[in-house]
């Protein structure tokens, strides 16, 4: 009767579950403290103090915020489509967590080392539009709907340039596996030869995660709260956490594609002593800081300007770089070996 518990598959299953918990729990803690970091960074930019009352240096602020949201009432608008209204934040949240299944945090520290890792990340980030569009439609409110439409158009547009940036990196690596991409950067990080593509990727990532200066879907001066206008309590919190988790995911992706993942900057013994996940976390934090820095610095784009940049500037530019990079690799015979 208890045979199933001694089954090898079952043990493997338990082991994978433990790995997932080991990744997701720290991730959620980091997400919580990212909200704190954001408030602190923006406060510093604006010469304020930021949260400093709850706990030492205000460190317990995210906990207090979480408790507050938890104790609020969940409101369903009477005209809303209840099931989809409830599903939308779950989709948004779980998708941004699901992406972490393939991200290698250190050498071999990855839940699923699949051959098409980059495509998986790309697919997940393109799916995250559904949480927003579902929320906008199910709320049955014009502000939410307008926010969702803006967001859908924006994310679909910027995926194109992200896709071309990824192609450029893949041409240099010759594999879709994320760990392989990191190994390929042992001699030089791709941010140096492909610097313009990194800039394109970073700006597109801002648009893809609906962050300032492209946070038009939640543009409060014209759309109240955008797609989550009608949301309250934990459903709102799930959107919020999902957005921040997506931000961390995008930063992690940038780290892997351009900053050599868990590799130290120089191949020196002392630097190699430091465990890989610290390098990874450090680089990702730097990217995240840039996200916050941009938010504190730039005003919001107008919608037509956003579309113009996406389609008329980034798309032709990144297409040109794909051609240039592959041409360069062919001329100097640097193409990664093929079967």
């Amino acid at each position, binding site marked *: 009767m208890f045979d199933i518990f001694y089954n090898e598959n079952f043990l493997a299953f338990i082991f994978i579950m433990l790995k997932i918990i080991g990744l997701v729990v720290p991730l959620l803690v980091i997400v919580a403290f990212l909200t704190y970091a954001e408030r602190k960074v923006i406060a510093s930019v604006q010469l304020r103090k930021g949260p400093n009352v709850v706990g030492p240096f205000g460190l317990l602020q995210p906990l207090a915020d979480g408790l507050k949201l938890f104790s609020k009432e969940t409101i369903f608008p009477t005209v809303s489509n209840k099931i989809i209204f409830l599903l939308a934040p779950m989709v948004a949240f779980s998708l941004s967590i699901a992406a972490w299944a393939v991200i290698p945090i250190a050498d071999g520290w990855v839940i699923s080392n699949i051959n098409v890792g980059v495509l998986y990340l790309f*697919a997940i980030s393109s799916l995250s539009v559904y949480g927003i*569009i579902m929320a906008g439609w199910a709320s049955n409110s014009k502000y939410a709907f307008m926010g969702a439409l803006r967001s*859908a158009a924006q994310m*679909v547009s910027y995926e194109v340039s992200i896709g071309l940036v990824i192609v450029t990196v893949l041409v240099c690596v010759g594999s879709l596996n994320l760990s392989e991409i990191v190994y390929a950067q042992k001699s030089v990080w791709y941010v140096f030869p492909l610097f313009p593509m990194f800039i394109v990727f970073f700006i597109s990532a801002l648009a893809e995660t609906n962050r300032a200066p492209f946070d038009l879907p939640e543009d409060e001066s014209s759309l109240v709260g955008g797609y989550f206008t009608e949301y309250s309590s934990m459903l709102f919190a799930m959107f919020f956490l999902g957005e921040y988790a997506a931000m961390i995911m995008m930063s992690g992706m940038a780290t892997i594609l351009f900053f050599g993942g868990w590799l130290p900057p120089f191949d020196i013994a002392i630097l190699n002593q430091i465990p890989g996940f610290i390098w990874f976390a450090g680089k990702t934090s730097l990217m995240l800081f840039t996200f916050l820095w941009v938010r504190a610095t730039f005003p919001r784009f107008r919608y037509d300007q956003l579309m113009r940049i996406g389609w008329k500037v980034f798309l032709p530019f990144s297409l040109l770089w794909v051609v240039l990079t592959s041409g360069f690799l062919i001329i100097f015979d640097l193409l990664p070996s093929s079967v």
Partner: protein
Amino acid sequence: MLPVFFYLFSIIAIFSAIMVITTKNPVHSVFFLILTFFNSTGLFVLMGAEFLAMLLLVVYVGAVAVLFLFVIMMLNIDFSSLRAGMIKNAPLGLLIGAVLLGEIIFSFIGMKYGISEIPGNELFVKLSEIENTRALGNVIYTDYIYLFQCAGLILLVAMIGAIVLTHRRRENVKKQDAVKQTLRDKSDSIEVSKVEIGKGV
């Protein structure tokens, strides 16, 4: 472990495919369509066709279905007229369905008795040795390059057609010319003039 997931994905896929054509609300239909795509992705992964699975996600779920949703949400669809056309269009739908089913059955019979030789069969041999992204790339960009280019051209023509059909040039639209804006400087946009008191510019 494998059969469990196979039956899970197939049952949900079939169920949601049925829901696509039976549910009343067209937006729900699209969501069920997305669920069907999702579960087919799962089936592809189980078959070991990971590249196709991810492409299905990126292209169909991530882009095509979003546009479907976009259009259906924006259009004010009259449900009763949709229902009215159902009886009229049913024979056509049944015919198409029967043809597709027949094709699938024939190809299965062909596979079982080795009658039909599937072009690109050599892929299956290669799959065991190399990852299928590479295998697909090797075939598509060498043996089938002309067909591949043809497919690309057809899509391009379709795209141009759609743009030509929907694009209309409107008069009196103010457009921002970013280049002109950034090239402006002090000398051609500000004039300092000394105005005498009581005279005006």
